[in-house]
């Protein structure tokens, strides 16, 4: 087996494969190292692939080429209590035509496809290879070793795209040895099968239209939320909860998931579906504040490994940021090869590129969002407030009606406290 490359990418997820694809297309000899038996085998996410503009530059026919489930034409938010729910939905023809705004995908199919595109462009994919260590010689990264195999795979520069825990970045001294459970969330997901026609009828969809709905108030008071995404003939449902809040609650993620699935208005949506797969993963939700060192001598960090995840409470974006960061890392390495210099001073161009891109602009712009998402009241009191207010507005019971502004004030005072409402509004205003 060949052991010397011009660059090594650790992890064939969206960040890594985007990086390998970009480098291979520029003629670099690049190794893409993946610990699964194929790329995507180890990867899970909620299910939403947001539009990837930088991949569309490579594949202008992305939506007819990539293995996608449905394009998202309809989005919704549900405020939920144990017995009630209030829905807000948005749908536009603009999201129902190309370029689509987002898709549902299966990672074992999508990630494999993207990695295979990198291979077609000339990258060498090494499956079943768990990186054990980073080889450092004379203070510079010189390659990696693979668990259970002798020798090393060498290159003058590597991209750590090995996911949220990034042991590659840790071994290179770029991330802190310990994570804060306050900055991390865990997502658990159940995938149910359901005939396409049933999904179409139940969620008001035609052709390949998809529906994405987020839920607040469905996590038993634990900070987090739920989701439902329609795939072609399956639906993905799950919850994402902050790990510190889950820990303190003493509850388990699968019990919380089951409670969500059993909520009367939600359980109807799953009728007839059979559970196909259960999965879980950690998500970096600390935003701008938790981004590690992004470069060192002979190393760049991309994707979840660099905590490039934008959880604003409205969108939860990660995969698009990952892919774009992978491409920017690749461009920096292409430049570095021209200069034959892989030192920090050349590779810092990666951070400059990221800072100028929408990736960092978004993360900076929403840097207060994590603080907002730590307001406990969002996950209990506010959904209660919304649902109870709507019930009062709709209810006919032979007593005189309260005016809506008066009702709003009364409910807000009772359920949350006016001072809290004002302070939370201020936090949300700053965050969004």
């Amino acid at each position, binding site marked *: 087996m060949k052991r010397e490359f011009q660059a090594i990418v650790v992890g064939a997820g969206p960040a890594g494969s985007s990086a390998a694809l970009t480098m291979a297309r520029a003629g670099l000899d690049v190794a893409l190292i993946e610990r699964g038996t194929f790329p995507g085998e180890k990867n899970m996410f909620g299910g939403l692939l947001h539009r990837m503009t930088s991949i569309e530059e490579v594949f202008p026919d992305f939506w007819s080429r990539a293995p996608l489930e449905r394009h998202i034409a309809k989005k919704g938010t549900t405020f939920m209590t144990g017995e009630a729910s209030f829905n807000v939905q948005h749908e536009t023809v603009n999201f129902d035509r190309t370029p689509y705004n987002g898709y549902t995908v299966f990672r074992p199919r999508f990630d494999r496809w993207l990695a295979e595109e990198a291979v077609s462009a000339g990258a060498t994919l090494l499956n079943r290879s*768990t990186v054990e260590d980073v080889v450092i010689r004379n203070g510079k990264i010189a390659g990696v070793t693979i668990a259970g195999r002798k020798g090393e795979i060498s290159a003058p520069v590597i991209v750590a795209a090995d996911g949220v825990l990034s042991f590659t970045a840790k071994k290179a001294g770029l991330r802190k040895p310990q994570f804060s459970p306050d900055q991390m969330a865990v997502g658990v997901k159940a995938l149910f099968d359901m005939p396409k026609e049933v999904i179409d009828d139940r969620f008001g969809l035609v052709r390949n239209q998809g529906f994405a709905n987020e839920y607040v108030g469905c996590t038993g008071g634990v900070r987090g939320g739920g989701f439902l995404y329609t795939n072609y003939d399956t639906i993905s449902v799950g919850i994402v909860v902050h790990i510190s809040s889950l820990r303190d609650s003493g509850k388990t993620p699968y019990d919380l998931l089951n409670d969500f699935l059993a909520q009367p208005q939600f359980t109807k949506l799953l009728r007839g579906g059979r559970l196909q797969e259960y999965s879980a993963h950690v998500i970096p939700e600390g935003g701008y504040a938790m981004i590690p060192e992004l470069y060192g001598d002979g190393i760049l960090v991309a994707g979840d490994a660099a905590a490039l995840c934008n959880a604003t409470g409205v969108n939860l974006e990660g995969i698009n940021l990952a892919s774009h960061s992978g491409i920017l890392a690749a461009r920096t390495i292409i430049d570095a090869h021209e200069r034959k210099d892989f030192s920090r001073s050349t590779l810092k161009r990666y951070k400059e590129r990221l800072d100028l891109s929408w990736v960092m602009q978004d993360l900076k712009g929403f840097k207060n969002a994590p603080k907002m998402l730590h307001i406990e009241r969002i996950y209990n009191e506010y959904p209660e407030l919304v649902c109870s207010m709507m019930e009062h507005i709709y209810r006919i019971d032979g007593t005189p009606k309260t005016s809506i502004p008066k009702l709003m004030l009364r409910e807000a005072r009772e359920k949350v406290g006016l001072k809290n409402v004002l302070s939370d509004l201020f936090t949300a205003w700053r965050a969004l």
Partner: protein
Amino acid sequence: MNIDEIFDYTSFTIDREPHIVLDKDVCAGCDQRGCVNCCPARCYTWSEAEGKMTFVHDGCLECGTCYVVCQRNAFSRWNYPRGGYGVAYRMT
């Protein structure tokens, strides 16, 4: 979703050697034990009678929650399974 039936839903290629190994003394002295309730695959069990933490790697989803929640660094080993082993998602 019955967590006891995880092997009916999710595929695993189980290695003989566990990829995560606990320092039992650290676990015995821990009063938080967030790993027990936070692990989405219920791999951690605490026995109050024996004062002992048990980790079973068979159904581990390699999600990283225990690595994040444990603030005592109770792992004498926390690796991903070697190539080809561990959880194998089909359609998630």
